[in-house]
């Protein structure tokens, strides 16, 4: 892993620590209060806070996960670094698109 990738992975991890805390608390609250899908959508729809929160979360997770996958592939599969980089970008962009699509679905809806 290059120093640059190392820094991106560590910084995205630091960013995700509080985000995961809020995310889990939200899940516990929503399931504890037995909120319906419609009730959740009513809260998230048009919300700048939740849109911004989960967009940030998706970006951090896509960066962190893609770099982690690259490390696993580089160590365990013997892929050359260039191919590992290509897979990292592909995986990261896929996570990003799928994640942001999910965020849009609950915020823009």
């Amino acid at each position, binding site marked *: 892993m*290059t120093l640059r990738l190392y*820094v991106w992975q560590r910084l995205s991890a630091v960013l995700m620590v509080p985000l995961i805390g809020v995310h889990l608390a939200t899940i516990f609250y929503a399931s504890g209060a037995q909120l319906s899908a419609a009730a959740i959508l009513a809260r998230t729809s048009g919300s700048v806070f939740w849109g911004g929160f989960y967009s940030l979360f998706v970006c951090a997770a896509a960066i962190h996960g893609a770099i982690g996958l690259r490390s696993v592939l*580089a160590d365990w599969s013997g892929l050359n670094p260039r191919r590992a980089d290509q897979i990292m970008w592909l995986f990261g962009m896929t996570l990003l698109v799928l994640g942001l699509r999910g965020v849009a679905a609950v915020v823009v809806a």
Partner: protein
Amino acid sequence: MNSSIKVTIWRGAQIGSYQSYDVPQRDNQTVLDLVSWLQRHVVPDLAYRFSCRVGVCGSCAMTVNGRPRWTCRTHVSKVVKDGTLKIGPLANLPVIKDLAADMSPFFDQWHRAKGSFVPSAGRHDPMARVKPGSPRRQAADEAIECINCGVCYAACDSVRWNADYLGPAALNRAWTLINDERDGGNDARLKAVSGLGGCQACHSHQTCEQLCPKALNPAKSIAGLKRRALSAFLKGAL
């Protein structure tokens, strides 16, 4: 004591096979005693390496029942399993013959990690005064006792997976020099240990710490290098 131990030993070079021998068991016998008995009485062409026999030189490390160990300081009674012992050359290194591994890649990594002292003063300058209690000196103290036996290198998963990885010993050495206030080569050294196969390739499995016969903690040194490299990167110095 009349009992014997069934010893399986690697014979050959990169390509070879394990062969079994019966060796008499003695009180307080070390694995090195056992290998020496075999070489003197049964297989005179058995190749292995040792020098001091008392845990000072670091040349007798081998793989004993799957773990890298100093054979001179390992009692047979502590590692024998069901009356058998499997002894091979150190892992993660090419095999020269039988139990003698080629240490060249291990020492090459020391050079790549810039493990040599770079003087920052000349002979006419006053002698450097290093306070024994200073944080940097204490950090160096914790890591300085390495004798280059290669046990950590053979134990390391990251070394096995990544041929470019500098390994625990070389990085541990770099950490002692980075904490040496007399050294003048730290910019180049920090760059060397943050490049291809540098400290960031360590996954902190800590087998180096678990198996180091000197009870050192190279993983801690590597964590120190990671912090130092991260700090330099954020300041734009790397």
